[in-house]
């Protein structure tokens, strides 16, 4: 039995790549998720992991060939093959040998010795400067020593970087407690990289508002069946919000703009990236010309994206571009969030759960279905007044959908 290896889909605007180098030879054993080839794109060099454990089969393309996303590049045959030169860490971690005979090896980095652990000069200076107790940090260096990286990571509150495989093997010693190490998928790595770069590049901040969903819910109730009968798709909230965003970016173009070097690029169209949950993680297909589309077209497009995300058939083209993002954390019950923009875009609208809450209307406390709205934006480009006004426009359009018709 053989399994095809395809050029993976990435959450980035990459449609083709060059096969840079084969990392495995035909006949060589491969572990699941072990890289078998490296691809070079115009943005990054990436590795293609094997989808299964087995034996490297024949190459379908040669080194240097241009391959499209989804193209088959090789096959993995069932079996064990010749042992690879360097076993993947995942294999070592998965098979802790029970110690039966022979004295147990010396424990790695006994914590008791930590206080006396030798610190290198850079580490010594850093713990002094940051006021960190070095004995409280787990070292990943030789013999469990603290590296500068460990201290930097500890200062940020994140766990230290990849410990040596030996430590991984030692971990499951206590029954029932186990760590599982899974290779980050390329998609996850790309998402990680992009989100972090957005935080590092943009001057991110978030403005909040709340909105009364009564009118939209009422409209939806009223026309649900009719809408579905005529258009073959359910009337959801996304179409209302998409149109409300169209209204807002028309008034405040900066929200739909982006920074390119020293220039600001304004768009006279609205391409909305819609965050859609897929089995491998979040993907963000783009509803193009959303400002020109009808409610039905928006709902159809989003419905189609959702189905294809589940099936894994979204194309790179579906995800390329986008001038603004809507992220609906409400479907998972989120009360409030500060979404991160999807670079090079400058703003993202976060939707949240709808909840009956007491609000004051005309001097009386009444129960209304309320939702918190969040608009994260790049302050380098968008002023606070603009962001707040844009969000207020969205709120007002949702609270009174008639505004959508008369462009208010």
């Amino acid at each position, binding site marked *: 039995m053989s399994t095809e290896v395809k050029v993976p889909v990435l959450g980035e605007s990459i449609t083709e790549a060059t096969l840079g180098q084969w990392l495995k030879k035909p006949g060589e054993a491969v572990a699941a998720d072990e890289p078998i080839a490296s691809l070079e794109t115009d943005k990054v060099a990436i590795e293609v992991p094997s989808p299964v454990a087995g034996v490297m089969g024949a190459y379908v393309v040669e080194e240097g060939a241009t391959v499209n996303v989804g193209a088959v590049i090789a096959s993995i045959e069932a079996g064990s093959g010749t042992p690879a030169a360097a076993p993947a860490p995942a294999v070592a971690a998965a098979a802790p040998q029970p110690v039966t005979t022979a004295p147990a090896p010396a424990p790695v980095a006994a914590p008791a010795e930590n206080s006396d*652990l*030798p610190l*290198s*000069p850079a580490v010594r*200076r850093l713990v002094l400067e940051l006021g960190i107790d070095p004995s409280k940090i787990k070292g990943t260096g030789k013999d469990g020593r603290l590296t500068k990286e460990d201290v930097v990571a500890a200062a940020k509150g994140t766990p230290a970087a990849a410990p040596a495989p030996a430590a991984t093997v030692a971990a499951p010693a206590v029954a029932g407690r186990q760590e599982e190490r899974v290779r980050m998928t390329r998609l996850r790595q790309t998402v990680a990289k992009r989100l972090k770069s957005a935080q590092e590049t943009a001057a991110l901040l978030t403005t909040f508002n709340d909105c009364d969903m009564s009118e939209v819910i009422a409209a939806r109730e009223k026309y649900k069946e009719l809408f579905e009968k005529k258009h073959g798709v359910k009337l959801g909230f996304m179409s209302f919000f998409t149109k409300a965003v169209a209204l807002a970016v028309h008034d405040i173009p900066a929200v739909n703009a982006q920074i390119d070097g020293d220039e600001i690029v304004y768009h006279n169209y609205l391409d909305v990236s819609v965050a859609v949950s897929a089995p491998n993680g979040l993907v963000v297909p783009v509803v193009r010309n959303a400002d020109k589309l009808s409610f039905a077209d928006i709902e159809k497009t989003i419905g189609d994206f959702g189905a294809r995300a589940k099936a894994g058939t979204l194309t790179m083209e579906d995800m390329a571009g986008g001038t603004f993002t809507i992220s609906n954390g409400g479907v998972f019950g989120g009360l409030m969030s500060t979404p991160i923009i999807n670079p090079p875009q400058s703003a993202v609208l976060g939707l949240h759960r709808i909840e009956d809450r007491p609000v004051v209307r005309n001097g009386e406390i009444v129960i209304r279905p309320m939702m918190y709205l969040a608009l994260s934006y790049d302050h380098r480009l968008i002023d606070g007044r603009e962001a707040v006004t844009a969000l207020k426009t969205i709120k007002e359009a949702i609270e009174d959908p008639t505004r959508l018709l008369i462009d208010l």
Partner: protein
Amino acid sequence: MAEQDYDLIVIGAGPGGYVAAIRAAQLGLKTACVESRETLGGTCLNVGCIPSKAMLHASEMYHEAHSGALAKFGIDFKSVGLNLDQMQAEKTKAVGELTGGIEFLFKKNKVDWLKGHAAFTSANSIDVVGKSYTAKNIVIATGSSVTPLPGVEIDQKVIVDSTGALALPKVPKHMVVIGGGVIGLELGSVWLRLGAEVTVVEYLDQILPGMDGEVRKESAKIFKKQGFNIRTGTKVTGATVKGGKATLTVEPAAGGASETIEADCVLVAIGRKPNTDGLALDKAGLTVNNRGQIDIGHDFQTNVPGIYAVGDVVPGPMLAHKAEDEGLAAADFIAGGTGIVNHDVIPGVVYTYPEIASVGLTEEQAKERGEVKVGKFAMMANSRAKTNRDTDGFVKVVADAKTDRVLGVHIIASIAGSMIAEAAVAMEFGATSEDIAYTCHAHPTHAEALKEAAMAVTGKPIHM
């Protein structure tokens, strides 16, 4: 509070001071440095480390050629002459280039040079030749000067200090060096190589006080072999100068009959003392300890906030590189950062032939703290030393018996001064002797001897 003239004024432009000034300027502080000498660089560059190395290097080359030591390599000289004036001129040239280099660095980094002596007028103001300057911070880096010996007055003609000994107009017939420490042995070596008879008089029972016992013994043997007269356990009680000759009165340190030694040059090298005279420390609220030093905290700050001190004027070994590192660290603290100096790992080098270098604890000091394991390797068994015919010396690694952590390294070898850097790096990283033993060393190099000595700590060296 009124605006200060400077963020930082450094007093003294030696290795501690000039480095502190440049670092502070690099960190964005408005900085000035006070120096009364006509050139920057302090004792080290003008009359210490640098000119002595110039003379050591030149005299060694002369000695090799003149003594016939090169004949075995097939290098024959018809005649070898000494042009002492030229040797001195080349030394002066090197010193000029280096001190000029610091002046350039000051300009490049926009450090103002305030020429003259500094005296405190308050905790944040000083006077330099009648002009007052204020600063938010002040670093005292005034260094040290030769400790005088009662009864032996330095005239810089017959009785000289290290400064005078670097600039003798002719090779003395008999030079007596009072003090068997680093400076005495280095300068004694210079004139021994150039043809003088050299007698070293040391009060203690061994030369090189403070160094590892085995090193002291072995180096005394080597120096005697080279022609040094070494008289340990002897004290000098007085000196008279008449007609260009000195007569020294000496007696056994333990007491006994005195005798006299004739010499046409006497070098007083019994140590150095911190320079604080004329600083008017009291105006700033500062005092010195019973050794004349200025006490400081971990951040090099004195008991007066905003006043720092580094180098020879504070406790610790009087070494240029120790002062430099302290200068860097003090500047870092002043600029709001964190400086670091590990006083446990400061290498020391005696630039004789062979060189003697050490870092960390001596075997004796280490034994006082707990059980140790020692690994030794003779340069005689090192292939490169053997090939170069410079087999004097050994490498000794002192490690903790339990943890195997390296506590000290002591080297006598032709290039020990360069070899010790590796030991210092290893110790800064808390290396064990095994770490050094498992580190690949290039062959054939003198440095392999350190690897073999490390191997000897827990096992056996290969080549011995």
